[in-house]
C-alpha cells in the first residue's frame, strides 16, 4: 500500500467519531467517493426476527440523484447479502439502454451489528463494473459504516436508559408526594373530627363551627386531589374526551377572575380582555386550566398581582397569565409540564406535580399550545394559544 492510499485510509476512518451518525456517514462517503465511484448508496437493516429490510441511510451522489428517496433498486441484493452474509455483486440484465438508470451495477456488503443484520449497497448506473481491487476499500467503508451505526445504537440505548431512570425517579417522587398530599387533609379531618368526638371536654359553638369548617374544606381539598389524579391518569392514557362548544373566552376569564377574587380577598387581578367572538372549546376543561394557573400564581407568587390578557387573532386566541413573583429557575423550565415534576425547594407548598401536566394535556386536546416565560426575581408568564376551530388544526 502506498503512502497516499494509507493516508486516505486514515482520513477515511476519522469521520466515525462524530456525535451525529448521519454526519459521520455523510463525511465518510464524501471522502470515499474520491477513490471509489458510485451513483447512489443505501444502508438496509433488519431488526431482530423481522424480514423486510428498512433503509436507514441513503445517499445519492451521481446519476439518478433525483431517485434518492427511492432505494428500491437495492432491496433485492440487500436481502441476498443479509441472508448469506457475503459480499454480493450483480450486473444488469439489459446491457444496452438509453436510460442508464435501467442498467444498475450493484455491490452489496454485509453490515453486522448487535441484534441487527444489514447491507451496504452501492449502485453504478450503466457501469463500470466493480473491480476486485476496489473490494478492500468498499469493505473498509462497510466496517466504518457499521461502527457509526453501532455507536448510534449504543447512544440511543443510553438515552433510553436515562429517560427510563428519569421516569422512574419522577414516579418514586410522585408516590412520596402523593402519599404526603393525601395524608395531610386526612390528618386534619381525623384530628378535628376526633377533637369534636372527645367525651371528656366540650367545645363552645364558635369552636365547633371552626372545626367543622376545616373538616369541610379539607374534604374538598381531598376530593380535588383525587380528581387531579384521576384526570392525570385519564389524560395520560388518552381516555378523556373533549366536549367542544362555543365559548366566549373574555367572559369565561372574567367570571373566573371574579370567583378567584371572592376567595382571595386583597388579591389584585388585572384584566385585559377585549370582547372576542366565541371559539370551539370544552368550557369545563379550559376552566380547569385557568383555575390551575390562578392557583399556581397565588401559591408561588404570593402577594403579587396577576395580569390576564387575551389577544384576538383571526384563527387563534392567545391568553397570558402573568405574575410578578420570584420566577422559576431556568433549569426547571424543560420539565415544568412533565407529569409528576415539581420544582425542588418548594417544601412547604402543597402540590402533586400534576397541575401543569393536566394543563398541557387539555391544551393539546384543543390542538393548542402552552408555554412559559420566566425571569428569576421578575415573575412568570404562562401563554396559552388556542385555535378558534380545534377541528381545523392539523
Amino acid at each position, binding site marked *: 500500500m502506498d503512502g497516499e492510499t494509507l493516508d486516505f485510509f486514515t482520513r477515511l476512518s476519522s469521520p466515525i467519531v462524530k456525535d451525529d451518525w448521519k454526519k459521520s456517514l455523510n463525511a465518510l462517503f464524501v471522502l470515499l467517493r474520491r477513490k471509489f465511484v458510485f451513483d447512489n448508496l443505501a444502508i438496509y437493516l433488519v431488526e431482530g426476527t423481522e424480514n423486510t429490510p428498512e433503509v436507514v441511510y441513503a445517499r445519492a451522489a451521481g446519476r439518478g440523484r433525483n431517485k434518492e428517496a427511492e432505494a428500491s433498486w437495492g432491496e433485492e441484493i440487500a436481502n441476498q447479502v443479509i441472508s448469506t452474509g457475503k459480499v454480493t455483486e450483480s450486473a444488469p440484465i439489459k446491457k444496452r439502454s438509453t436510460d442508464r438508470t435501467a442498467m444498475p451495477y450493484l455491490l452489496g456488503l454485509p453490515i453486522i451489528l448487535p441484534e441487527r443484520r444489514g447491507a451496504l449497497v452501492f449502485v453504478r448506473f450503466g457501469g463500470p463494473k466493480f473491480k476486485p481491487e476496489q473490494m478492500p476499500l468498499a469493505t473498509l467503508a462497510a466496517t466504518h459504516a457499521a461502527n457509526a451505526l453501532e455507536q448510534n445504537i449504543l447512544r440511543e440505548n443510553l438515552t433510553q436508559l436515562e429517560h427510563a431512570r428519569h421516569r422512574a425517579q419522577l414516579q418514586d417522587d410522585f408516590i412520596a408526594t402523593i402519599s404526603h398530599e393525601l395524608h395531610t387533609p386526612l390528618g*386534619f379531618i*381525623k384530628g378535628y373530627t376526633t377533637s369534636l368526638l372527645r367525651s371528656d*371536654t366540650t367545645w363552645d359553638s364558635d369552636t365547633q363551627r371552626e372545626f367543622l369548617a376545616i373538616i369541610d374544606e379539607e374534604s374538598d381539598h381531598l376530593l380535588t386531589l383525587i380528581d387531579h389524579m384521576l384526570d392525570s391518569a385519564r389524560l395520560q392514557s388518552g381516555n378523556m374526551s373533549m366536549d367542544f362548544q362555543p365559548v366566549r373566552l373574555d367572559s369565561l376569564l372574567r367570571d373566573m377572575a371574579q370567583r378567584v377574587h371572592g376567595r382571595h380577598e386583597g388579591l389584585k387581578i388585572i384584566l385585559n380582555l377585549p370582547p372576542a367572538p366565541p371559539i370551539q372549546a370544552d368550557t369545563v376543561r379550559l376552566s380547569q386550566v385557568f383555575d390551575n394557573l390562578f392557583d399556581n400564581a397565588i401559591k408561588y407568587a404570593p402577594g403579587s398581582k396577576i395580569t390576564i390578557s387575551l389577544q384576538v387573532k383571526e384563527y387563534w386566541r392567545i391568553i397570558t397569565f402573568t405574575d410578578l413573583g420570584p420566577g422559576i429557575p431556568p433549569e426547571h423550565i424543560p420539565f415544568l409540564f412533565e407529569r409528576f415534576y415539581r420544582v425542588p425547594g418548594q417544601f412547604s407548598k402543597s402540590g402533586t406535580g400534576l397541575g401543569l401536566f393536566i394543563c398541557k394535556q387539555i391544551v393539546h386536546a384543543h390542538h393548542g399550545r402552552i408555554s412559559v416565560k420566566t425571569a428569576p426575581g421578575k415573575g412568570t408568564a404562562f401563554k396559552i394559544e388556542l385555535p378558534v376551530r380545534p377541528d381545523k388544526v392539523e
Partner: protein
Amino acid sequence: MATRILVVDDEPRYLRLLEANLLTEKFEVFTAVDGEKALESFAANPVDLVLLDVMLPRMDGFAVCQRIRQFSNVPIIMLTAKGEEQDRVRGLDVGADDYLVKPFSVMELLARVRAVLRRAQVTETEQDRFLHMVICESILPVLKSG
C-alpha cells in the same frame, strides 16, 4: 405551675388542632413553625414536653430532636406522616420517647402525652430518691465518725 408543652409543626392547622386540645387539659402551650424556631423557642422557654413534627422546613424533626438531646432530657413525642418502620426507628434512635403517626386520633395523642409525662415524672422521682440516697450515704459516715 402548669405543665408546659412546645408544639412544632409547619401546618397552621395542625398547630391549631394540637393547641386547642392541649389547652383543654390545662397545659401551657408554645408553638413553632420550623426547626430553627423550635430550637429558639426551646432555648427561651423551658418546657416539660415537646410534640415534634418530622417534616419541617429549614431543619427536620430528626435534627431538632438530636440537637435538643445534646443538652436536655425533655420528653419528646415525634409526629410523623410516614408510617414506615425506618422512620419510627430513626425517631426513637435520635432520642424521641414516643412517636405518633399522622393521621392520629386526638384521644390517642392526649393519652400518649399523659403517659410520657407520667413516665418522666417517675424518672424524676427516682432520680430524686437516688440523689437523696447518695447524699445520705456520703453524709452518714461523717456523722458516725464525728
